[in-house]
Structure formats: structure tokens, C-alpha cells
């Protein structure tokens, strides 16, 4: 039976099709759109919150989407250990929903940034990254105006101590320098996971980096890791 991935569509999502197309390019995976008004994600192995501008980014990015009916199911399934990946606006929604700590605020430069960046994998034993070694550089596209990661000092220390920082923006030498930081994120943070390690949010778009012809295929590494994790979860449950 194929693995089933749910890609949640909010009004204003615009990377939902990228996510479904990327996931369906993997053998043994079926990705479906799930409208945000749905109330259940039963039968799905993993959940993707895609990028976009849910609810027009009104009030704050992700602030209204977090109250969509589907989010109760996302929170419930995340607590049960299901993999949840949020990219870009999906990351913002996960933070607003309290599934991930911190918040994403306006880029320090005030500019919308749209480019391919280098990110360094800080943690290679997460369910989303165990297909690659620690220190691996992933070239991934970003496209956001509000991707500056912020958390208070205590939260930031906990993120580091618990090895929850998965990705940092780095330069061509693999160093997280200020110049390599596209949005002013604290400590060049590009992606974090929760303490239980089954919820991962990142500003870059792995969904847009699944084909070398489009600039990078490095996003496949993240989806491959998720697929391996789901296979292991299924084997353990059988």
C-alpha cells in the first residue's frame, strides 16, 4: 500500500501543487490535497503544511490559518507522533499554532527575498534528515518577506541544547555568517523541530528543489528521509 501524504490547502496556499507534484514523484507515495475545512487526517502517514499566503497573511502570517478546522486534527495527530512538515507559510502556521517555539517576523532588510540559499544540516538523526549526514549542505530556494526567526533567550538556549535547530543559513564555506543570513534570523536559523522531533518547520522550500533542472534537487533528501521514517513507523506498527 502506498504511503499517503496529506497536503493541506488553506485559502491563499500557493505551494500546495509544488508539494503534491514533488511527493508524487517518489515511488510508493501518494499525495492528496486536503481542504482546510476538513476535520480529520485519519489514514494519512504524514502531513504537509505548504507555503503561500494563507488568509492573505492578514493580522500576522499564519495567525488566522492556525484556527482552521483542520488544525485540530494536525495538533492531535502531531501529539500522536505523526510527521508534520511545514514549509515557509506552513512554518509560520506551526509557530502560531504553538506546535513549534518562536515566531517568524519581518525580514530585517524589509525586502522580500527570493533566491537559492545554502543551508547546513545541524542534526542528522531527525526523522526528516537522517538520509543525510550532519554538516551536509542543502541548496534550497527561499521566497518570503517574513522569515526572520525570533525566540526569547531561554527558548533559543533550549532549542540549541535539545538539538532542535535542524538547518542554518551558511556561506560557501559552510559557515553561518551574518552575510549568509538572508532575513536576519537569530543565529541564522532556517528550520527547527519540536522536542519530540516529529514536527519540522523551515523557511526554505524543499518542495521547489526536487528536480535538478529547476536549480536544485536537494529538497529530495528531506522527503526521502520522511518516506524512510514512515516506512519504519509502518513496520513497527505491523
Amino acid at each position: 500500500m502506498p504511503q499517503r501524504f496529506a497536503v493541506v490547502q488553506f485559502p491563499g496556499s500557493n505551494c500546495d501543487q509544488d508539494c503534491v507534484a514533488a511527493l508524487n514523484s517518489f515511488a510508493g507515495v501518494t499525495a492528496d490535497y486536503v481542504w482546510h475545512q476538513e476535520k480529520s487526517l485519519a489514514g494519512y502517514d504524514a502531513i504537509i503544511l505548504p507555503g503561500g499566503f494563507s488568509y492573505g497573511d492578514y493580522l500576522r502570517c499564519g495567525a488566522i490559518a492556525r484556527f482552521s478546522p483542520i488544525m485540530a486534527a494536525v495538533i492531535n495527530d502531531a501529539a500522536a507522533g505523526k510527521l508534520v512538515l511545514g514549509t515557509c507559510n506552513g512554518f509560520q502556521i506551526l509557530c502560531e499554532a504553538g506546535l513549534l517555539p518562536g515566531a517568524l517576523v519581518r525580514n530585517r532588510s524589509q525586502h522580500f527575498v527570493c533566491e537559492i540559499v545554502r543551508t547546513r544540516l545541524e542534526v542528522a538523526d531527525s526523522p526528516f534528515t537522517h538520509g543525510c549526514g550532519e554538516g551536509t549542505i542543502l541548496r534550497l530556494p527561499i521566497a518570503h518577506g517574513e522569515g526572520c526567526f525570533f525566540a526569547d533567550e531561554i527558548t533559543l538556549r533550549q532549542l540549541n541544547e535539545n538539538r532542535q535547530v535542524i538547518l542554518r543559513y551558511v556561506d560557501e564555506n559552510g559557515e553561518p555568517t551574518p552575510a549568509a543570513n538572508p532575513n536576519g534570523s537569530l543565529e541564522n536559523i532556517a528550520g527547527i523541530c519540536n522536542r519530540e522531533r516529529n514536527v519540522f518547520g523551515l523557511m526554505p522550500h524543499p518542495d521547489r528543489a526536487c528536480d535538478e533542472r529547476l536549480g536544485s534537487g536537494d529538497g529530495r533528501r528531506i522527503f526521502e528521509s520522511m518516506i524512510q521514517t514512515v516506512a519504519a513507523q509502518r513496520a513497527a506498527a505491523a
Partner: protein
Amino acid sequence: MKAKVIVTPKAAVLDPQGAAVRDAMQHLGMPEVQSVRIGKYLEIEVDENSGGVEERLHSLCRDLLSNPVIEDYRLEMVNHA
């Protein structure tokens, strides 16, 4: 009844918008401007006959209208009369 809510970024949070406006004000002849912080102002009309309005508004200020990770809020109730 009217509720006024003011949402402001916490001191520790970068406010690049505010910094840009501060710079513009300094360039426009007010070098004494030291800092500008930009927030949001919401005016909310509420049916005054329902109970517990202020308490419920506070709850929504925390959950929806502001994000306590990055913002503070002030809620003020104003009677029409």
C-alpha cells in the same frame, strides 16, 4: 460598546519598519527622534448587552489579535454614552 486594542512589538523584537521610519523622520528635520516602534490599532464594536465581553476579548487578544512571543497588547473598553 467599543474596544480599542493596541498591539506593539516586544522590545527585544526587531522592528525594521520602525527603524526605517525613524531614519526618515531624522532625515526630514527631526534628528532628535530616537526610536520608532510600529504596531497595530484595532477598533472593535461589541454588543454591550452580552456578558463577560472584556474577559473574552482579553482571551482573544492573547490567542488571535497578538502573538505573545513577539508582541504585547493593551485593551481599552470605551462606553458610547
